[in-house]
């Protein structure tokens, strides 16, 4: 796993106010306070195009006050803070 400290230092060095969040237990830096369903899916599977008819489930925990935990539907977003954690999966196996 990439060191989160290293990422945060990198962001600080660039002078940007990046926010550290987690997607499927991996750290990512996002520029916006609001993160969308589509962004989270893209972060989970970087550099790859998700199947258009594949339905991902996106959950979040430790989001901004008032949105502690829940889920995102396509097109929805959530205000994040440092440490907000997302889960992304296709939940179709048994």
């Amino acid at each position, binding site marked *: *796993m990439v060191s989160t400290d290293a990422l945060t230092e990198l962001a600080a060095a660039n002078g940007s106010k990046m926010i550290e969040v*987690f997607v*499927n*237990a*991996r750290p990512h830096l996002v520029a916006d306070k609001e993160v969308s369903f589509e962004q989270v899916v893209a972060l989970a*599977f970087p550099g*790859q*195009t*998700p*199947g*258009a*008819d*594949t*339905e*991902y*489930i996106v*959950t*979040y*925990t430790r989001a901004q006050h008032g949105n502690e*935990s*829940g*889920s*995102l*539907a396509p097109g*929805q977003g959530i205000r994040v803070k440092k440490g907000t*954690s997302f*889960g992304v*999966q*296709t*939940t*179709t*196996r*048994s």
Partner: protein
Amino acid sequence: MDDLTRLLNEGYDVELRDGYLVVHDVPYVTADKTVARGQFVMPATMAGDILTTPPDHTTHFAGSEPCDNDGRRLAKVIHGMQVSDLLPGLRTNFYFSAKPPEGNYRNYYDKVTIYVDLLSRWARRIDTRATARTYPVHEVADDDYPFAYRDSSSSRAGTTSLNSIFRGMRIAIVGLGGTGSHILDLVAKSPVAEIHLYDGDVFINHNAFRAPGAADINELRAQPNKAEHWAAQYSRIKRGIIAHPTYFEVETVAEVAGFNFVFLALDDGSDRQGIVAALEAADMSFIDVGMGVTDTGAGLTGMVRVSTSTPGRRVPIPAGGTAPDEYQSNIQIGDLNALNAALAVLQWKRHLGFYADMASDMPAFAYPVSDNTINRLSV
């Protein structure tokens, strides 16, 4: 709790037979100072199927003359030798009369336990392990009984009346993979009438590592159909399990129309959306389960999902779609299968009122493994 249930729960080998209460396997001491086993036979006074108050303080006894640990006959217990054939194949040899100070026993529990102790306390002097509480396991002869043997777990816990919720129910489990087999493991221990299992696949090695129990290597070598394999396994405890060794298709929904509940534990490759649409059109109540697991590089994470769809409240069921192979992970872990199954069965029982429910309605939720929380899904 009625006296018969209480005696059974405490391990006494008692049965009701043709109007008599029979107590088996009672240790006593014979004249030659050895421990033998005898039986009490006493008239059973019933109110419906419940034992009430014994008509008197006497009982018949099948065995030789009971003695103390020195071989002296129990004169205070034995009224006399009396051969009786009250029940076919069970000849009694003695008639006992041990009268309690109050004249009669208050109930059958007291009568049985006191008579047992009057004999067995001498047997314990010779063999300290001698007990009438043998916790016997008998096949249940009643064809209407939902289990192959008595459900002493519910009676010991006092939840037998709550179990009436399940009586007569017909349930289908579609898909007998890791999650479906765990669903069966739990549903088979509730007294539903019928459990129909649908799966066209064969049960092979890797299935055994995600399933409940421990498969025998010879079972694996035979490559049984999953539905037939699990029906055979769980018929050991549950009656009314019916195997359908075929894949569940949209057309199969007609077979389960009128069932009380359907558990969908499908895998990618099945027509989940078509089946869901057909179940909705047939006004069925069902739960769809599913999971996904990925490797973070520093441990696995994943998600298990439970979606409860009833005629009054439908929820969207996600499809696997055609994501490219690199998105698809075939990782599945037995404990996540078991958790997914347990959460699904728990929601079913909540829906039935078996569990008290103080929570707001959760039509669909997911458990993201690395976050260790239950997250409500927007519907």
